[in-house]
């Protein structure tokens, strides 16, 4: 048995004979473990075989280090803009490493250009690997790392930055960058992919191409998101960093504007049309990063709520409530069944005295209004913040965390109500709703 396992080294080509005398020839793959061996047969198929069923292993040839692929070399073209691509993770530039089974980033400019050859005629590419993680695992320290990397690229004089990112929390990161980079004068686009780039149909290609084209051709110089507009491989939208949400777990047009409009539309041939006005800031870049120990929570209101859900946040620095409807919590004691609601009111009263509490709505679309129903009015009396705002709860979470990182606590409530980066719209437009 020992020699049997010793011969099952990844990338060895072996001939296996099973106890019922079937023979299989193939290359040992990394999924092999103490119970089973995974073989790639000559036909290309992979199969799993139980080690307990194997009688004999013969090595046909030993593991060879794979020769590296022929790569396109990138030559600097003075006539073209230079775009820096910073990779944080996600499917967009990663591949499965079949040697180790891990997902790795193929990320040198050469590797990128061999994958996306049409970029060569558009721009010069610089690239660096910031991280390679699932976006849901990100913490504020990762935002700060990214901010530092961006600063470095801007200092080098890059014409634009593309951040490749996992889609799950991409819209949180875009808001974080929008707040942290005040007075930005360089285009930064976050790009993700809903279908992995190891398939011919991946949306990664058009999203990345669209981002490069928009940076190369437009005078945009802020933070934005570039993702598919529809199921078609025809156009991408450049979306606001603070008013965009991932609305679908798998569709390529998952990212849509909320209570606002996209910034622009980029077609696959590079042509683009601006949809909403670009705010051009003329001030100097000021970097305000995140404090990594800031604790802000998001609480979703729901029926049959308990006061404990609110008191849980007493040790936090701030709380965003995703209220029902116009911004409500269950705070009315209307009969003997609703006694808990009075406790909720008491809990929220006490919490809002110690930390900033901000109301958003779980309807996603629309504006908070704490003046219409008694629940809202009771919350307003307690100075729960957020009346008349139409911010996404994700953006509100990032904004509050950032304010707590950079401003005195006493200023937070006031600044939460001010529109700093297009996160609160003045007027409620009827234009776009799902």
């Amino acid at each position, binding site marked *: 048995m020992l020699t049997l396992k010793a011969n099952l080294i990844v990338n060895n080509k072996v001939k296996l004979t099973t106890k019922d005398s079937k023979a299989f020839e193939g290359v040992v793959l990394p999924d092999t473990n103490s119970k089973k061996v995974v073989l790639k047969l000559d036909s290309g198929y992979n199969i799993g075989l139980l080690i307990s069923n194997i009688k004999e292993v013969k090595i046909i040839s030993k593991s060879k280090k*794979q020769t590296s692929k022929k790569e396109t070399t990138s030559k600097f073209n003075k006539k073209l803009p230079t775009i820096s691509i910073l990779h944080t993770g996600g499917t967009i530039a990663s591949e499965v490493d079949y040697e180790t089974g891990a997902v790795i980033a193929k990320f040198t400019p050469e590797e990128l250009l061999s994958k996306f050859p049409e970029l060569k005629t558009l721009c010069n590419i610089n690239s660096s690997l910031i991280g390679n993680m699932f976006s849901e695992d990100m913490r504020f320290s990762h935002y700060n790392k990214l901010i530092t990397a961006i600063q470095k690229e801007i200092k080098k004089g890059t014409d634009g930055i593309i951040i490749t990112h996992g889609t799950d929390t991409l819209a949180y990161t875009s808001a974080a960058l929008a707040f942290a980079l005040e007075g930005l004068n360089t285009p930064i686009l976050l790009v993700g992919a809903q279908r992995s780039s190891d398939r011919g149909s991946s949306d990664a290609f058009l999203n990345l191409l669209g981002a490069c084209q928009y940076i190369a051709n437009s005078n945009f110089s802020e933070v934005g998101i570039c993702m598919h507009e529809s199921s078609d491989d025809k156009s991408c939208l450049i979306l606001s960093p603070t008013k965009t949400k991932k609305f679908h777990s798998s569709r390529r047009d998952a990212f849509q504007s909320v209570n606002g409009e996209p910034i622009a539309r980029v077609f696959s041939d590079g042509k683009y049309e601006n949809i909403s006005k670009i705010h051009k800031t003329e001030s100097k870049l000021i970097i305000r990063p995140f404090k990594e120990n800031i604790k802000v929570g998001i609480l979703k209101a729901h029926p049959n709520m308990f006061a404990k859900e609110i008191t849980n946040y007493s040790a936090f620095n701030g709380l965003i409530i995703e209220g029902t409807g116009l911004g409500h919590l269950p705070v009315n004691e209307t009969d003997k069944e609703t006694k808990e609601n009075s406790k909720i009111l008491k809990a929220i009263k006490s919490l809002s005295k110690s930390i900033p509490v901000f109301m958003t709505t779980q309807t996603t679309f629309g504006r908070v209004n704490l003046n219409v129903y008694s629940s809202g009015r009771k919350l307003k009396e307690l100075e729960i913040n957020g009346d008349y705002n139409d911010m996404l709860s994700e953006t509100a979470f990032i904004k509050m965390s950032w304010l707590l990182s950079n401003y005195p606590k006493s200023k937070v409530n006031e600044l939460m109500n001010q529109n700093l980066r297009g996160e609160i719209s003045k007027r409620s437009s009827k234009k776009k709703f799902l």
Partner: protein
Amino acid sequence: MQLDYKKLGFKSGLEIHQQLETHKLFCNCPSIVHDKNPDIKFERKLRTSAGESGKIDQAAKYESKKQKTFFYEACSTSSCLVEYDEEPPRQVNKEALEIALQAALLLNAKPVDEVRVMRKTVIDGSNVSGFQRTMLIATGGYIETSKGKVTVDSICLEEESARKIEAKDNYVKFRLDRLGVPLIEVATDASIKDPEHCQEVASILGMILRSTNKVKRGIGTIRQDVNVSIKGHPRVEIKGFQDLKSIPKIIEFEVEREIKELKNKVEPHVRKANPDLTTSFLRPMPGAARMYPETDVQPILLTKEFIKQIKIPELITEKAIKLEKKYKISSSLAQELVNNELFVILTKQFKKLQPTFIAKTILEMPKEISKRFNLPKENLKPYHFESVLEALNENKINESAVLQILADAANNKKIDFKKYKKVDSSKIELEVKKLVESNKNVSPNGLMGLIMKNYRGKVDGKKAMELIKKYHK
């Protein structure tokens, strides 16, 4: 030209693709192969991507060079986000997996310990994702043929591609109803001896797959790909056979073509069968580089317990032999009657009737009605057969009236047994005698025509001829 296949170093293997009658392989959409009125439309582009080995597949590269736009049309009744490559696949359809395992066991093959779903790069647009999901289910099977054992190398379960409905220089249009329908792929080794043998192997494999009783029937539901080579010529795969009968001739022409090509340097490639039985170049032969793992679907462990509970169905040929003996019917009728429940019911119900006649009534008469009277045989429902056979069983009509009555039914006319009421035999004899006497110069066949003009369906033709011969001198 008479070819000596052995001397030529003839090598041939078969791949059979059979659609299954279950819901789709990686989602819960029904398998409606011809869904009409698409309500969803979108367009995509496809790119090549490297497989596990870091190599880009030959065939994929060839397609990629064409840089086409793909237009997709889909019906929400038969497809969902999984087909549009807008949602990851669900787990493998368990029923389809069980049918594939039934087929594997019937083919004497051994299931693998663990099934791993693969992506086979296909970027001609026929798979929205840019690959076809496929998995190896079993290996090392065989079938018995008139020319010895033929090894079945592999049994795979895979998803069907989309249906091409329009192709131009810069775009191709597909319909997504068929995409994702489960397919069993059975591949033999290259031990097929000659073109006729290939047809025999295809027919046996088809019969075995049909024995699961869970396969789709009709045009396009089973497809054969044939691999052919002779000594000194690389392997050529031929796709797109219209029917089994065309296999020997197409192989023969292909071998003649390969003989002529022997002097040239040729790469292995795929050809398509043309209606005139010749073949033409389709694309380079795809290799192992086109396969990489489907990371969105967990591997499936085939435990001994799971395999044990798979019921091995009886082969159609075995069932047919039983029917042949039980009902004393011809073997060709028996083959057709396997799994025909109507036949079993009717033979139980009408004991006075010959099973052969019942079989012919339900199998052959509808075909004849469609051919001779150009009437839609689909109009014939089980109760039509039942009522007409009941009348025959009760001796109310003659056997010869059955076809006429069914033809009326196919024509949507009300069945009127009175019209075909059996005429008393003494009355007929009298009528024949009179007719023969008054038409002395008319031949027996002519007389028959005259009789039938008045008594079609009401008298038995054989009986009438006997009577004519009795009086005609």
